[in-house]
């Protein structure tokens, strides 16, 4: 089965080069020159496996495109930022991106990221069929569903994977590095902001009071744990 990728990038030459490399890796790449075109192409649900989104776009900027995609779609989004340490990264993650790559990005890094992204969103091996219940929250890993107070919660696949890792640890504290490795497939030098921003997004969806969380708890100086 072909994996389909939507590339939203305004620079024609860069678009062409990335398409060449990704096609080599077996991706079917659709190109969009700006946010409007990208959003039009995304209107058809389930058409793409992943979106590669440049944050600096003419017209609607990347952050806004990200937010609009998230309103209707949980497709994994990898954003392309100019700099790793700029505020763009945090803002992009807040807007709903799953991961990021920085320019000049090499095809090798990009392909590895996309593989990790699909691996974690695609398969559900090792998930226990028995739902994990914590107070008002019920996590059904076998059907990728989270139910709070009887209502299903819409999580992106990365958020779900993060929650699953924490829930499967059964109250053990997981460090940011461990979570980076398990959820994003990063090595030692991953960006712990990925974890922190995703935890924040997750709390906003599953906690009654995100500022005083009861399910996903920060253990100062160590990491996060799930549970009472």
């Amino acid at each position, binding site marked *: 089965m072909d994996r389909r990728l939507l590339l939203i990038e305004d*620079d024609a*030459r*860069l678009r*062409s*080069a*990335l398409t*060449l*490399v990704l096609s*080599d890796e077996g991706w079917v790449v659709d190109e969009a020159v700006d946010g409007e075109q990208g959003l039009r192409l995304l209107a058809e649900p389930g058409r793409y496996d992943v979106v590669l989104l440049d944050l600096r776009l003419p017209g609607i900027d990347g952050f806004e495109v990200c937010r609009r995609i998230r309103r209707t779609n949980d497709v994994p989004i990898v954003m392309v930022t*100019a*700099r*790793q*340490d*700029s505020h763009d990264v*945090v803002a992009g993650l807040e807007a709903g991106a799953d991961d990021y790559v920085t*320019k*000049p*990005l*090499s*095809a*090798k890094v990009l392909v590895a990221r996309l593989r990790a992204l699909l691996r974690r969103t695609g398969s559900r091996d090792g998930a226990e069929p028995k739902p994990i219940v914590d107070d008002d929250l019920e996590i059904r890993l076998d059907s990728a569903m989270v139910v709070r107070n009887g209502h299903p919660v819409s999580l992106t696949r990365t958020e779900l994977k993060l929650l699953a890792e924490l829930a499967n640890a059964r*109250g*053990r*504290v997981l*460090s*940011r590095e*461990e979570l980076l490795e398990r959820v994003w497939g990063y*090595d*030692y*030098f991953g960006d*712990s*902001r990925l974890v*922190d*921003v995703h*935890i*924040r997004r997750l*709390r906003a969806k599953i906690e009654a009071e995100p*500022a*005083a*969380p009861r399910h996903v*708890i*920060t*253990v*100062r*100086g*160590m990491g996060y*744990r799930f549970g009472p």
Partner: protein
Amino acid sequence: MTNNHRSHRRRRLVLGLRGRVRLAFALVAAAIAVTIAIAVWLLVTNLVYERREGLSLAQATATADRVEAVLRTLSPPDDLVKSLGNPAGSMSMLWYQDEWHSGDPTLSAADLPTPLLERLMSGERLQQRVWLTGTPRLVVGIPLTDVDGTYAEIFPLDDMERTFRTLAATLVAVTLVAPLLGLLLGAWAGRRALRPLTEVTRAAGAVASGDLTARLEATGDPDLAPIAATFNRTAEALHRRVQGDLRFATNVSHELRTPVTTLVNAIDHLSTRREQLDLSGRKALDLLGDEVTRFERLVEDLLEISRTDAGADDLLLAETDAAELVRQSIPDTARRLLDVDPAADGLLVRVDRRRLERTITNLTQNADRHGGGLVRVSVEPAPGPTVRIAVEDAGPGVPAHLREQVFERFARGATSRDRTPGVGLGLALAAQHVRLHEGRLWVESRIGGGARFVVELPAHAPSHRQSETPPAVDASTDHHPWDPPWVTTR
């Protein structure tokens, strides 16, 4: 050489502005003191002496009148001069009938200098100071015209002389002290007058050490306002210029990122089709690939260095195990060269991991490219407490006079042989990153040849994990002071 010598000699003669003010004050004070002392001396001594002379003359004249009156009655002159009983301790002598008669047994005519005696005997009216038996005296001679003799009275002046000596001592003391006071006054005045100059020095120093926002405060002083204004204008222009340069460097490297990305990926694409190219085509592809990699790194370094110059506040500090960080930062092939002192194991440093990784990578790359290959990477504790990370190579080493210079931007090796690509910014960036962490980076000679680049960072032993601060981007506010019993630490 001659020039040097001359300028050195000249420098020794040049006093500072402050020194000159002090010296001027001291000289003026000395001149005033000497003038006043001389004037006082002349005035006071003359006044006192004239007064004493007048009194002595009046007394002598009165006595002479008495002597003359008595002599007219033909009484013996010796008894007469002895009976005079002069006040003020003066002694009387009488020249009468070609003979000297003394009123005091301690004094005889022979004690007086002969010229004076002759003048007295010749009947001259005189007043003269003489030294007799070691003391100053005033001799007053009054001719006794009626009886053809001379009356001489000798007044002691030693009390006056003592007064004069005290006066002289006082004046000399004042004269000596005055320049010292002048010096102090000059120092005080100089400091006061030059205080604005100290401010200028401070501000200029701040600008020189990189704080381009340092300005002089505007004062109401009309003498200083122009200097302050000029200084501030200059600093402002410099600041704008540097900011402009930084913006330019940042913009350029930003603009270059997209084309570099295109290049990197196009070459990647070509590389997968390497087999389809002939030999020369492959060679060209390799060249292209190497150069694009180098170009990419240069763009990255340029951006990074200009961003730090601009004072980017994006330092993401986290407690990190120093030895572990080094282990992760060096290439897999170099792991066996890593030598961690057991005492340094577990030492924590508070660093931006990405920056420090970059620093160590740059140093190991430098060793590989320009130092004849990496030989050893060590981590050891040092006083402070600090941790020292040393990267050693087998190259020719860095000569002493280039040891500062190698950390400059786009520094090149001394020999053309050493013009290996990529020297550019690596060490400068490493130095900048280390400075940002309040550490030090230097290069020294390795024992056994080669260079040894040492990074020294403030470190501390792991105390309690609770003391660790959470990363910057953690907005969670939940507090759980207890450790759950099933928490396991890795």
